[in-house]
């Protein structure tokens, strides 16, 4: 143990016991961030803020919510929305933050793809990020069910039923997940546990790993330029701040993040108070009714692209049932982003998309295709809609099949 001397003050007392000064240096004042980045790199901090909002408002809601199918709807819509002071605000903030989190995750994800931040030693950042995406998806889905509204009930019924597609044991798995033959009280109680304990713990853990994995390959930058962080940070510490290509996380980088966060949160409160419907489906203000299906069943907007890949294959092909093709495509869509670093076969080109001859078309086609999938994922799958969904789903899979070939071809071009 280090020798403990009489402290010169509170900070010194803490420093002798917890090394807070070294910790602050490593985590904040000498954690180097490239100077050449735009506001898209602030999305990580925006997500941290949103997660904080979800955590705090979630704890407040937890004080009044009742995980019981006879009480859940009223505990949310009467107790929280009407009786608890500002309960409506906590609920709207919670619901809107959940939706906004996915919007920012998508911006964060496409930023990573555009600037090639998933490559060259940054694979672990990418993979932990995708694990976070899946964890957040599970968290959102389990939370969506808790108010026991019409759409939450039927969405739970449909989504849990997907597991019946697993060969041989599928039907038993569905019953095991639900804890009953249909979505019922047992399902609600366990989803409650998942939503408030297990999944948040997993998310917090993976966020820590995600941040940790960022420290070694460092944050990427707008030009995907390689530079020596040690040399650049020394320049900064020597006072040649303008010359250095890096800035410390605190206060320089965060001062910009605060501005971006403020800008975003202004918009956030506009949504929470005036435009909450996009995040709170009106149908969920009707209590769950197992005897009556809603006219249209669809998930929240952030799962629509995925859902459309699932139902895009609406006819049997070569003797394989449409449902099974859809399920396979759905599973692929859920994991294909995770292996993106290994599908991109161009080892040299880490340039942003606009500097890559073919990849740029691939990128924008992917963005447009996912928007088409999202929009058609909500529309009734009849007539033309079904065909648009089918074509968009095929293009989606095709893009990922084509990626290794495209990037390999691109790599040859780079060599010449």
């Amino acid at each position, binding site marked *: 143990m280090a020798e403990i001397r009489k402290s010169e003050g509170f900070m010194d007392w803490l420093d002798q016991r917890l090394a807070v000064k070294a910790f602050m240096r490593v985590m904040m004042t000498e954690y180097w961030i490239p*100077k050449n980045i*735009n*506001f*898209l790199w602030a999305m990580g901090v925006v997500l941290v803020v949103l997660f904080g909002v979800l955590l705090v408002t979630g704890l407040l809601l937890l004080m009044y919510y009742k995980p019981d199918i006879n009480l859940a709807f009223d505990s949310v*819509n*009467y107790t929280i*929305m*009407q009786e608890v002071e500002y309960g*409506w*605000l906590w609920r*709207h903030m919670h619901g809107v933050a959940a939706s906004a989190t996915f*919007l920012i995750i998508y*911006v964060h994800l496409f930023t990573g793809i555009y600037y090639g931040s998933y490559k060259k030693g940054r694979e672990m950042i990418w993979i932990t990020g995708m694990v976070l995406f899946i964890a957040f998806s599970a968290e959102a889905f389990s939370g969506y069910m808790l108010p026991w509204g*019409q759409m939450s009930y039927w969405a739970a019924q449909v989504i849990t039923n997907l597991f019946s597609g697993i060969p041989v044991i599928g039907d038993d798995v569905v019953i095991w997940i639900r804890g009953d033959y249909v979505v019922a009280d047992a399902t609600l109680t366990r989803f409650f546990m998942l939503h408030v304990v297990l999944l948040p713990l997993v998310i917090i853990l993976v966020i820590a790993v995600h941040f940790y994995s960022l420290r070694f390959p460092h944050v990427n930058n707008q030009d995907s330029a390689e530079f020596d962080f040690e040399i650049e940070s020394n320049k900064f510490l020597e006072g040649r*701040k*303008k010359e*250095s290509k890096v*800035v410390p996380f605190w*206060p*320089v980088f965060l*001062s*910009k993040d*605060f*501005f971006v*966060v*403020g*800008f975003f*949160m*202004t918009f*956030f*409160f*506009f949504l*929470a*108070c*005036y435009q909450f*419907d*996009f995040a709170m489906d*009106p*149908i*969920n*203000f*009707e*209590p769950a009714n197992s005897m009556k299906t809603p*006219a*249209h069943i669809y998930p929240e*907007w952030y799962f*629509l692209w995925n859902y459309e890949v699932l139902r895009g294959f609406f006819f049997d092909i070569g003797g394989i049932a449409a449902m099974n093709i859809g399920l396979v495509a759905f599973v692929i869509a859920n994991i294909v982003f995770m292996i993106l670093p290994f599908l991109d076969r161009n080892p040299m080109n880490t340039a942003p998309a606009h500097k890559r001859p073919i990849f740029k078309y691939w990128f924008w086609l992917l*963005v447009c295709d996912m*928007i088409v999938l*999202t*929009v058609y994922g*909500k*529309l*009734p799958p009849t007539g033309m809609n079904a065909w648009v969904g089918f074509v968009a789903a095929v293009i989606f899979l095709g893009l990922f099949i084509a990626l290794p070939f495209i990037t390999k071809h691109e790599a040859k071009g780079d060599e010449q």
Partner: protein
Amino acid sequence: MKEIKILAIVLFFTAVTYWGVEPYAHSQMHPHVAPADFSFKDMEPLHVNGNIDNGKALVEANCIACHSIKSLGLQAPMSFEEAASAYGVVPPDLSHAGVIYDKNYLAGFLKDPVGATKLSHKFSDAKPYAMPSFAFLSEQEIADVVAYLGNIVATKASNKMVFEEACGRCHSMKYDGLKAQTPTLSIQNYLGAVAPDVSMMIRSKKAEYLNTFINEPLKMVEGIAMPRVGLTEASQEQVIAYMESVGDRKKAERESLGLKLIGFMAIFTLIAYLWKVQIWKEVE
């Protein structure tokens, strides 16, 4: 500036997605129907002026055997439970019937209740509607009844009273402590469907939808058991205002707090921007 361009691209794709999954999807999933019409054109208008005194005699002879008129101190002859088991549904109190329902609708309803309520798919000779037809009365007599019912209204009904008279026989509003006058099981037997609690309807269906729906339910939902009740435009506004005051009672607080929260964050953003400019001056 480059960042503005990037922001514009992000906003563009976000806006396209939003448009696709909200207004566009909504327009595709909810086919357009004609807006609410309070002229009740299908009801033959009354051509004669009613006589109040004669109307009084007719009401006393024909209506109060089943209906209460509480504003005149006339109580219903049966309790809610007894009435529900006798007729299938509790007959409405008539205290404000003369003003909350359209006059032509009332006249048409007296002549042909099933036709006026548009419930011919639910009721027939085999399964009769609780309210008998008064088509045997003359045009003049019907006008007299309508005139009398309009005349007994002493004070304007509150929003809640309109709701109770027009909707409260079948629908509960449990978040305001109102229980449907007719027991749930009786309604189910009578109409073939449970009348839902409407506490949160203002948020699940929205005022705009409710306005068209209450005016003419069948236009919105095929085969529905909900009758056309014939509310005047003003009374229907009162019903919707009451539903909003129960189901969305924090609306005013939300709208005023929203401005403060947005204002607070706008000031925060401005200060953060100035701080950022000052800090980055050293490094750029």
